[in-house]
């Protein structure tokens, strides 16, 4: 049986950085999965772009939970996909977060590209200061995705691994 789940590249930060990029993504897979474990003492949000496109070609919708409540919204055209939308505590420095980002049919030049991701942020013991949710993002481009940018104030120790998944 052929291997259908392969690591493409891994980044582990040895110092702080404002962007993590995966470039020259091979076109030999069907889908992509990005497992992202960020550390960020600065907190706040982070952003995803494809092919370094900074135009207003993205939309996203989400449902999130944060301590005592929920949030949900649909987005209008913007220049990025928000990684932790609707949250006030977002990333945190003490506890690493976990993001599971799935990008389907990334080489299909007939369709706009969707990404679906879930995220988990448990910031303290006792069930407080935690959040999570689901985000669906769309990049209105028929270009194949050849690079991914993750933008925020990342700390040393942040890791990101991009996997390729083949249908056969």
């Amino acid at each position, binding site marked *: 049986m052929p291997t259908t789940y392969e690591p493409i590249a891994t980044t582990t930060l040895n110092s702080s950085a404002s962007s993590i990029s995966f470039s020259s993504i091979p076109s030999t897979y069907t889908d992509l999965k990005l497992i992202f474990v960020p550390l960020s003492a600065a907190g706040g949000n982070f952003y995803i772009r494809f092919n370094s496109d900074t135009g207003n070609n993205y939309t996203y919708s989400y449902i999130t939970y944060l301590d005592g409540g929920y949030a949900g919204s649909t987005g209008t055209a913007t220049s990025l996909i928000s990684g932790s939308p609707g949250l006030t505590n977002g990333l945190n420095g003490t506890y690493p977060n976990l993001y599971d980002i799935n990008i389907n049919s990334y080489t299909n030049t007939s369709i706009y590209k969707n990404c679906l991701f879930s995220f988990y942020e448990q910031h303290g013991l006792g*069930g407080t200061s935690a959040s999570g949710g689901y985000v669906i993002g769309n990049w209105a481009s028929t270009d194949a995705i050849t690079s991914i940018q993750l933008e925020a104030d990342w700390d040393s120790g942040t890791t990101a691994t991009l996997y390729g998944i083949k249908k056969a």
Partner: protein
Amino acid sequence: MPSTYSLIASATPTTGTSVSFTSIPDTYTDLVLKISARSNYTSGYITTLYVGFNNNSSNLFSYLGMYALGGTLGLLSGAGGNGAGDLYMPTENSNITSNLFGSAEIYISNYKASTYKQFSSNYCVENNNTANYYALGTTSSAFGSTSTVSSIEVYLGDGNFVSGSSLYLYGIKNS
């Protein structure tokens, strides 16, 4: 290229309130636990299932989750003395369809890291009858320990595992 997504161990309990995976090798980057389970508890439609590491009972676990349960949205949160990742599995209550099992995936990232451990739970139960009883949800959890995760314990909140339950532990390598 070596296999990236490999089965480490499996369990098919027919009774008992917990399942343990011990001596987890340290040769992977992340761990994934796939669960299909049902409890013989009869006093409620569902029961919780939660996950602990390293047999730790020092109140280092915490969780917050969002769920839809029988058509109602809710949050669950708390601190677990010996586990977190709380999710719902079906029981053998008379209103629950026979042979119905819940499905769950638990992802444990960087299980060897010297940081605290973040892990996720996603799960669903669909009763598939006119009672319209279902549950689905997602939970964020943390294990406030810098120790490598070398064992995983899975606990039922009520009752015992029934025959047909299965748990598969996979390791994922990033190179």
